[in-house]
Every structure is written in C-alpha cells, then in structure tokens.
C-alpha cells in the first residue's frame, strides 16, 4: 500500500517537475537566453549603477523606492543617495525620471515607458537582446534602429560602451526590400563585446529584480515551506495508514 502511494506521488511529482521548466521560462520565446540570476547581488548592484547612469534620464521605476533598493541590494542610505539618486528625491520616494513628458513626446514621438515591470511584461531575454541589437539607421528620426524591436523610437543609450553597430543587409530579392541579416561593430566602444554582454546582462538582472522584488525572498521562504509540507504530508499519511488498518483487515 505505502509503495503504491509513494510511487503514485513520485510519478505525479516527477511529471510536475519535468513540465515545470517549460512553464518557468519567462517570455521572450526563441531569443538567446539572457542568463540572469536575480540572486546575484553583485550583478544587481552593477545593473543598478548602469540603470541610474544611462536609463533613468528618460525611464522611471515608479513602483521602486530608493529605500527598498538600498535594503534589497545591500547598500547603505548614503551609498544610494549619493551614487544612485541624482534627482534630489527623498530616500523613501520612488524612482521618477526628470524628463518632462511633453518634451519627450516631441523628441521621441512618445513618452519613454516606465520600466518597473518591463521584465515581467516583455521578459529578461527580450531586454538583454534588445539592448544588444541597436544599429545605426539614418532613415530613422533619431538615427537608430533595432533588430529585436524594429523601428523602435529609442536611440542606443549605451553606444559609448558598446561602440557603433551597423546592419549588414542581405541581397534584396526581387520585389522585396533587403533585410538586416546581422549586425557588425563599425567602431569599438569602451567595452569589449564580451564585457558589454556582461553589462547588459547586469542591467537585465536589475530590471528582473525591479519587476518583482519579492523574487529575492520567495525562493528562500519557499524551500522551508516545501520541506515543512513534505514532512506534514508524510505524517498525515502515517495517521491515515493507522486509521485505515481496520478497514483493510475488515474486507
């Protein structure tokens, strides 16, 4: 009896664990993996530094407070206020960009979106690949285009780090426009391509965190909950087994 029970449970659990990874991947289907690890605190800190140096000029994180950043990223109030907060906001206030919405519309055609939940809406893989896929395109209003998100209105904020990429066009088929096949670095930046991949990975990690700060907590709590429930279920099984002895003797 216990054998049958255990094998049924093992089977159910096995099926569940086997299918879970298929469901656990967060969006960005078919894109190369960003390879982020939201529990890597150093990566989070580097990502935060990049965000506050290159992104916050246009993009807010309206659901993220500076104080929460400090405690979650292991930084002191001073460190956050002098190194990350350039807008004069108070420690307990959320991260709001100073870009005026009206001017942004004139400059880019639309207001730069809030990025608090970007990693949940689009996926970290999308963010990572998007940041690596800008190329010069004189036909676009701001001079930039992107292979992951064609005709995006955003210029490459990290061009100093990455350098300048240009699109290599395929040969145009008759009646069709040529498409960008791959991107090539025409002018190197301050970082090597490998370093730049690492930097954008850190940025994606940071945005993964801002999309769900609870992610830092839930897995470590979850381990204990699961262990407790496993023990409880086993004890409950023993109780059931004891009670059911007379049913089994009786038939």
């Amino acid at each position: 009896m216990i054998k049958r029970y255990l094998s049924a449970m093992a089977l159910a659990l096995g099926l569940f664990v086997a299918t879970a990874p298929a469901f656990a991947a967060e969006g960005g289907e078919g894109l190369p993996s960003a390879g982020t690890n939201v529990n890597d605190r150093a990566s989070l800190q580097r990502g935060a530094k990049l965000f506050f140096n290159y992104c916050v000029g246009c993009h807010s994180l309206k659901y993220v407070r500076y104080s929460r950043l400090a405690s979650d990223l292991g930084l002191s109030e001073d460190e956050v206020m002098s190194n990350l907060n350039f807008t004069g906001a108070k420690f307990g206030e959320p991260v709001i960009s100073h870009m005026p919405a009206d001017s942004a519309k004139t400059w880019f055609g639309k207001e730069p979106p809030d990025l608090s939940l970007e990693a949940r809406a689009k996926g970290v893989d999308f963010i990572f690949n998007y940041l690596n896929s800008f190329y010069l395109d004189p036909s676009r209003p701001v001079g930039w285009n992107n292979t992951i998100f064609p005709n995006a209105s955003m210029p490459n904020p990290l061009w100093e780090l990455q350098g300048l990429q240009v699109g290599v066009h395929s040969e145009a088929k008759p009646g069709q426009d040529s498409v960008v096949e791959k991107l090539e670095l025409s002018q190197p930046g301050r970082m090597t391509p490998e370093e730049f991949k690492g930097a954008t990975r850190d940025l994606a990690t940071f945005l993964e965190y801002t999309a769900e700060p609870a992610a830092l907590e839930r897995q470590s709590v979850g381990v204990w909950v699961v262990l407790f429930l496993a023990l409880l279920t086993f004890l409950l099984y023993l109780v059931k087994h004891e009670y059911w002895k007379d049913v089994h003797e009786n038939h």
Partner: protein
Amino acid sequence: MANLFDWVNERAPNLAPTFRKHMTEYYAPKNFNLWYYFGSLAILVLVNQIVTGIFLTMNYKTSALEAFNSVEYIMRDVEWGWLIRYMHSTGASLFFVVVFLHMFRGIMYGSFKRPRELVWILGMLIFLVLMAEAFMGYVLPWGNMSFWGAKVIISLFGTIPYIGPGLVEWIMGDFLPADATLNRFFALHVIALPLVLLLLVVLHLAALHEVGSNNPDGVDVKHGPKGNRWDASKPIDAIPFHPYYTVKDLVGVGFFLLIAAFIIFFAPTFGGWFLEHDNFTPANNLVTPSHIKPSWYFTPFYAILRMIPSFFGTAIWGVIGMFGSILLLALLPWIDRGEVRSVRFRGMGYRIALAVLVISFLSLGAVGAGVTAELIPEWFPGADVTTVENAFGRLMTLGYFGFFVFLWVYTHFGFEKTKPVPERVTMHD
C-alpha cells in the same frame, strides 16, 4: 468541556445529529481511489480564495485609475502581500484544475446518473458561477489583458440579435470596459458570486448526502448487502466519512499544498499561464495585445467559439456552440441512457468515446491558447497556419460534440455491450 457541550446541546439539540449525519454517520463506499480527492480539494481552494481574497480587498483600490497601481502596491509594499496575491492567483488556476478532474471523475464513473442527477446539476451550476467569478476576478488587476479580455468576452453578448449591442453597453455601463465596469465586476466578484457559490456548494453536498456517494465500481452500495462493523443496518461496503475519509483527504490536502507551494514560491506566473505577460502592462484601450486570449481554463470553450464560423450574416453560432458545450455537460444524465455507471464495466465504445472527449478537450485548449498557432509553422513548414489550425480545431470541436451524440445513439438504441456489475465493491490494495 462536557458542560459546554451539554449547554450547547440543550439549546441546539439538532447540532450533534447533523454532525453525525454528515460526518461520523455518513457512510461512504470504502473503495474511493485517487480521483475522489478532488471534491474536498475544491472546498480547500474555495476557502483559500475567500480568505486570501479578504486580505487582498484590504489594499486593492476599485478604480480604473488606481487598480493596477494598488496591485503592485500589494506586491511590493504590503507585508507578505506578494504571498497573498500569489496564493489567490495560483488558487484560481488550481481551482479549475481540481474542478476539471472532479468533473471528469463524475463522467468516468457515471456519478451523474440516477439517482445523482441533482448533485450533477448543482455541480454544473457551481462550474458556471465559478467561470463568471474567475472571469470577473481576472479583470480586477486592470492590466492590458484584463481590459481586452473583458472587451472580447462582453462583446460576445453583442451577437445576440436585436438586443445585443444595447446589452453590451448595459453590462459595461460604458462604451468600453471602464471604471463603471471595474466597479460592478468588483461587487460581483467579491460579494454576489461568492455568496451564490457558497450556497450552491452547500446544496451540492446536501444533495450528495441524501443519495450517497458513488464509487469507482459504480456499485450501488446503499441498496446492497447491509451490516458493517459500526452499524448492522448500514451498507457492508461503506465506512464512516469521519474519521476515515477525513484523514485520507488530509493526505491529499498535504500533497496538493506541496504542489501549490512549488508553484507559488518557484514559478508563480507558471511561465505566463497563471499570470500572463501582457497583464503586467496597465490597461490601455489604444494598444491591443498581440494575441488576445483568455486564461488557460477558458481556452477549450474559447476555441469552440473561434472554430465555429459565422453564417447567415451572424456570428452567434460560435457563441451558441460555446455555451452549448457546457449545457450538454449539464444534460449528460439524460443523454446517457446506459444503466451501467462505471467505465470499468461499460462497453468498449464508451471507453473510446471518453478518450476522444479528453483528447478533443485538451486539443481545443491548445488551440484556444495559441499553442497550435506556434507549433504548426514548426511542424508543417510552409503550410498556411490558419487553414491547418481551423481544420484541426474543427475536427476537435466535432470530437467534443461527437461524444454526446455518440453517447446518446450508443445507449438509446442499445448498442452498448456492458459487463456484469458485481454486487460488492472491489478494493485493489
């Protein structure tokens, strides 16, 4: 303690007999298998939804302007708010997992048949209210999929001739899903439907306890041989619900919570199936999500809606098909004329039909969720996705409705060759 018991007993003398009737002296067949866990698990999830729901309403703001922000407030600033919300969102999905399995159990073992038709009808009403409850709850976070899902589902009523367009406006209280819609859905989701749901669950159980539980053999335990070790006048193959099935169900509860905890703590969005990517963007009536699809538990019914084409200048056939697919389930006790309940003793035709029903239902779910639209280009490069998907989806729609047609013909004209049903239940362990 004994004094307290006497004190209560004097004032409410029917309390103890009621407890006995439904627990310690409710005799259930002793051969329940794995499929019999899902009823008690459904109650567990219902309680979870109500309790976590109460805590969510403490911080949720019912307003089109504030709803989305307040959900993020719960996720970030409310102590353990993320856990409460994940318990509620995961619970919603698992509610349907449990209820689908519970319903399938009923079909497989013929639990809907005489004398349990009322139990089945009440169960189908629960399912209907549950779907309305889930749909309205899905709208409340006011993400972009909430908005567009609400728009698509409500506009289904627009296909009704003459009154359709006016009805849609009346339901929404506006020309689009808007603040008025959100507020009334909140009222229905938090008060009206849960009350109806609770009442129906009580009636479902009361009706069940009148006629007694079915079992995997479909043997009529209640009218079989009498005399068990607790009571000489009670069925020989039955045991008191409490303590035997309470302790057994607790094992199921523990195991179920283990799986739920895995999801809540390690994959709360379940890869976009339990919480969808597009719903992490606030509602926006100018930006349509690339694929509007309902939550996974509606996808089989949604696929039926999509697969039935418009003709005679109206799209109402799909809507009729979708609601009809649920109505037919409710009518099962009268469609299936067979005397034998359990699949264990039914004809080969029934077993095959049951397999077709399951395959059709799951395939329709895949069509409705857009899984086939993704797989078809991979499996059949160069093929026209819509053509292949429609062909497949319509075949599966035929499979689903075919089950009911076949079942009626099969049993009404006596084509079924059943096996003899034993007098006593069998226990396999």
